[in-house]
């Protein structure tokens, strides 16, 4: 009965033509044998996982395709960045609420940021499916904004939506969930988020009533502007480490660059609420992000070459 159900569901047509011609019959035969004695639920699950396999091949986002491998390399660090941003957003909202500014983070605003932190916890425990589910919740919260208009800056929401899309598109089986991979992602998130939380706390602690319109002397303004680049610096450093490691697949390592790009739309940490990002800021941030990408790529490639040369030199030991 389950077999006839699965036969009625579309599957072979979902595969790309060449793959279907080469392996379509083989996969259909294995599926038919697998669901022969299976219950209805298992049969539908079998079909759903195969349909996802077919769609990933069709869109070239499977873990065997370069685009999929690049996304898989980027996903843990995109998640780390999103979680850092979520944590700072929650801290800033809490401080504004405590200071009586009238800025009260709505339920929708919390729903847009808190799931990112939960997603990072899921990934840290090696549960990538849980992490993806939380990211999906966060993205849906950005799209539908359940509790009225969000108080968060538009650029922040766009940044999160882009990041969520990257995490969800990455092929789960290609993501590095080893202890080292998970530790690196968590370390990146803490490294990016902690200083931003500190800046938000100091700023909002000093000028809570008019936090968005405070005029600072250049000695304060320049470091604050520089702080917008900090998350991109952390992600660029992660890119450098991956590109410089000869053991890591080059395409997957290069994919970490995708975790640097979204930070073009970054704001100083205390301005996550009600502050638009203007064209000048975007240009400046874009230039900074591109410069970081170029520097990290050059340094990473040189490091990889040096380590490969060290590895083939007789008697050389790998000290890095």
């Amino acid at each position: 009965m389950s077999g006839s159900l699965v036969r009625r569901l579309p599957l072979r047509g979902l595969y790309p033509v060449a793959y279907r011609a080469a392996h379509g019959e083989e996969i259909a035969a294995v599926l038919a044998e697998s669901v022969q004695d299976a219950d209805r639920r298992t049969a539908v699950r079998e079909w759903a996982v195969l349909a996802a396999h077919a769609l990933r091949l069709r869109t070239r986002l499977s873990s065997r395709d370069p685009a999929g491998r690049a996304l898989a390399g980027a996903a843990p660090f995109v998640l780390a960045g999103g979680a850092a941003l979520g944590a700072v957003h929650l801290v800033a909202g809490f401080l504004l609420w405590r200071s009586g500014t009238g800025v009260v983070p709505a339920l929708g605003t919390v729903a847009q940021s808190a799931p990112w932190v939960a997603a990072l916890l899921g990934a840290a425990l090696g549960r990538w499916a849980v992490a993806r589910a939380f990211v999906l919740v966060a993205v849906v919260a950005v799209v539908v904004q359940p509790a009225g208009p969000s108080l968060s800056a538009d650029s922040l929401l766009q940044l999160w939506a882009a990041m969520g899309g990257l995490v969800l598109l990455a092929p789960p089986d290609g993501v590095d969930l080893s202890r080292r991979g998970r530790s690196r992602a968590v370390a990146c998130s803490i490294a990016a988020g902690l200083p931003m939380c500190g800046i938000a706390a100091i700023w909002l602690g000093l000028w809570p009533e008019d936090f968005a319109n405070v005029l600072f002397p250049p000695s304060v303004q320049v470091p604050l502007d520089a702080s917008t680049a900090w998350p991109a610096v952390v992600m660029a450093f992660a890119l450098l480490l991956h590109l410089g490691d000869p053991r890591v697949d080059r395409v997957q390592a290069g994919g970490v660059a995708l975790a640097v790009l979204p930070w073009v739309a970054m704001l100083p940490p205390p301005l996550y609420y009600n502050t638009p990002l203007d064209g000048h800021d975007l240009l400046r941030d874009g230039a900074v992000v591109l410069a970081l990408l170029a520097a990290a790529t050059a340094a990473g490639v040189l490091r990889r070459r040096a380590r490969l040369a060290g590895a083939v030199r007789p008697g050389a030991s790998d000290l890095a």
Partner: protein
Amino acid sequence: MTDRQLQEPTRLVLTALADAPRHGYAILQEVLAITDGRTRMLTGTLYTALDRLLQQGLVRVDHEEVVNGRLRRSFALTEQGQDTLAGETRRLRAGADEAERRLALGGFRPALGANGGTA
């Protein structure tokens, strides 16, 4: 190829192919046997893993045959695949040995069962 820790489906597929080449459904049955019936790998999970392992050079197509008018591939481990599985096995064994050692230090006597524990 990376030297990173293998994900569970990848390790199971490599283990299922360690002693002999197998076709798709035979790999699924072998995974069920290896895990004492605890893991029933889905067809989509298997082919996702096989596609990636073929791309990484850990698995190769050993031979193709026509069964009931359908072309069927049998897969085998490459030398690189054997090395990767051996490395993963050493890593898992080291972890298990360390866990047993610490349990013994804590006064626990781990029940090793019929398998006799780790080598």
